[in-house]
């Protein structure tokens, strides 16, 4: 949001402000073939993403980066006249505050999430499941709740799907719970956290692209998340009683006993610190920093993770200085066959976001080209004059459009960034406030990322499942869940989409800009 506070009383009222606004809206790039061709970079990227992730099944974010780079080059070939303005628009797009805010929030969230995992948060949840000593019928419902807790703490649904498929899925099979239902419950929990967590990559994108503060988004999102979650919980109890499992000789406790550690539950406090600070209006960097400090302190004081698990300098043997200070817990000299480098949860957590950061910068640049080339306005005018003609139809378009793009693109954060400008524009045209727009955008992004067989969340869960026969002698390949079979059992995902269609048609939760102004990106 560009703002001007200086006012020269000698000028015509608002003349300077309006001149600035008019200048920002003026298209500066002309394309052979008309304004629509300015959509080529983003359009080609979406096709690339569908082919790479949807058809080939390759979930490689860096691959998408190459797709966006090549798309930007192809788009430039269609520029009429000097290519300089096109090149400058790439820079203009990349330097927008929306990209920088998402990047900063992701880096902090990555460090926090990874440190919680290093501190055995999953082990705490495993202990809770073991202590509850529940039977086969209730196991899927309990799995849903615990997976939702983990995903809300670490913000990554993919990480939750891997951790729970590795531990809770085999335990559920041994207990006699329906395998497909347990897997569906794991994915549902992942959807819940991906949608609600302030440290979730999709939550961050949804807030910053819709001019809303992350804490306010989380608080406003709660009403949409909790109703489907309660229905999903009941549905898992009912289905758990109706659907039978497989008979396997073994004890579920055996799976759990290796990794159960009640102290891991201390990280519920770390998670609570971030959520409470963000909702109270603290900047997201401040909120996550406090959570990170608490998490590191718990890890060290309660011996949940050593210093080297969070940060480690592995220096080459030739480094005399490193040898002299190798008594420090975060320094070691690389042995033979070991490569030198920096490691630990802080390092891997932040580094894990690097490909997505580069991709985001390029997609935002592509969106800027579409705006400067007039294609964005043309598509928006068509949508607003033909499709989104009333606020109900506009919100329905936003829900179904986000769901459709996310159903096609495996990596849901990339899909979310690509669709975000449309959600912002359509919603703003009816003065829907930033929270409402962010909630529509993120709920459908999160839900569709964990339902279909080609969705990233399902793929990482299935990949983790494929390692189970090597891990457990009793686990036979026939016990694995077919990703097509799980589609109807991701209850929370389906219910979240249904919730937003209901909200669009009835006005539940709808807020206009005039009702409550969303906090600005500046406050993140």
């Amino acid at each position, binding site marked *: *949001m*560009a*703002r*001007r506070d200086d006012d020269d009383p000698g000028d015509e*009222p*608002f003349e300077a*402000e*309006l001149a*600035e*606004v*008019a200048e*920002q*809206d003026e298209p500066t790039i002309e394309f052979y073939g008309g304004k629509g061709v300015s959509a080529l970079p983003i359009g080609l990227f979406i096709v690339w993403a569908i082919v790479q992730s949807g058809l080939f099944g390759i979930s490689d974010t860096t691959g998408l980066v190459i797709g966006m780079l090549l798309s930007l080059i192809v788009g430039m070939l269609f520029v009429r006249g000097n290519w300089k303005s096109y090149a400058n628009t790439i820079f203009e797009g990349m330097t*927008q*505050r*929306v990209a920088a805010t998402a990047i900063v929030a992701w880096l902090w969230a990555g460090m926090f999430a990874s440190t919680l995992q290093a501190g055995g948060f999953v082990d705490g949840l495993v202990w809770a499941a073991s202590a509850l000593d529940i039977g086969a019928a209730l196991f899927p419902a309990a799995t849903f709740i615990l997976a939702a807790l983990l995903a809300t703490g670490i913000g990554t649904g993919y990480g939750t799907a891997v951790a729970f498929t590795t531990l809770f899925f085999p335990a559920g099979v041994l207990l006699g719970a329906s395998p497909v239902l347990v897997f569906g419950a794991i994915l549902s929990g992942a959807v819940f956290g991906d949608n609600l967590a302030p440290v979730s990559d999709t939550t961050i994108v949804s807030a910053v*692209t819709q*001019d809303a503060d992350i*804490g*306010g988004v989380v*608080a*406003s999102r*709660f*009403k949409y998340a909790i109703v489907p979650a309660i229905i999903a919980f009941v549905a898992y109890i009912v289905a758990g009683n109706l659907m039978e499992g497989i008979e396997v000789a073994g004890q579920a406790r055996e799976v759990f006993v290796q990794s159960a550690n009640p102290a891991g539950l201390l990280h519920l406090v770390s998670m609570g610190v971030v959520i*409470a600070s963000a*909702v*109270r209006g603290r900047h997201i960097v401040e909120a996550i920093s406090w959570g990170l400090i608490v998490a590191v302190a718990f890890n060290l004081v309660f011996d949940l993770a050593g210093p080297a698990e969070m940060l480690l300098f592995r220096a080459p043997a030739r480094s005399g200085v490193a040898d002299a200070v190798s008594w420090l817990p975060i320094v070691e000299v690389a042995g033979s066959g070991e490569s030198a480098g920096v490691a630990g949860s802080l390092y891997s957590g932040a580094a894990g976001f690097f490909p997505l950061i580069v991709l985001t910068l390029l997609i*935002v640049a592509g*969106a800027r080209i579409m705006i400067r080339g007039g294609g964005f306005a043309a598509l928006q005018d068509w949508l607003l004059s033909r499709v989104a003609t*009333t*606020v*109900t139809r506009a919100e329905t378009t936003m829900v179904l459009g986000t769901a459709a793009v996310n159903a096609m693109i495996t990596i849901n954060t990339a899909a979310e960034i690509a669709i*975000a*400008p449309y959600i*912002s*524009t359509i919603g*703003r*045209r*009816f*003065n829907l406030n930033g*929270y*409402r727009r962010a909630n529509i955008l993120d709920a459908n992004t999160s839900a569709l990322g964990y339902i279909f067989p080609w969705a990233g969340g399902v793929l990482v869960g299935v990949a983790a499942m494929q390692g189970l026969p090597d891990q457990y002698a009793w686990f036979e390949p026939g016990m694995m869940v077919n990703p097509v079979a799980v589609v109807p059992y991701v209850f929370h995902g389906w219910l979240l989409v249904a919730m937003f269609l209901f909200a669009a048609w*009835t*006005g*539940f*939760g*709808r*807020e*206009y*800009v*005039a*009702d*409550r*102004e969303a906090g600005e990106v500046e406050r993140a």
Partner: protein
Amino acid sequence: MSSLEKFLAGWRFRSRRPTFEPGAELVAYVTDADGGTSVLRIGDSRLELDESVPADTQVRVRVTAFDEETHRGEADLLDVLGTATF
């Protein structure tokens, strides 16, 4: 707004045609700027602005008239706050 109020905000069914009292001041985006008349579309209600302002500009206005039957009204421009950039 307290944290609890933030969680409780929006637990209601909001009309697609909100109404406004004359004299009320509000912040909104200009949504249409065709034919020399700038319009603030808030849901399916419309406020016509007394000055020409490009679409997507955020403004502060004062409502001068509003017909609850047609859900149309008029407003005076008080301040130009900025423009949406994304």
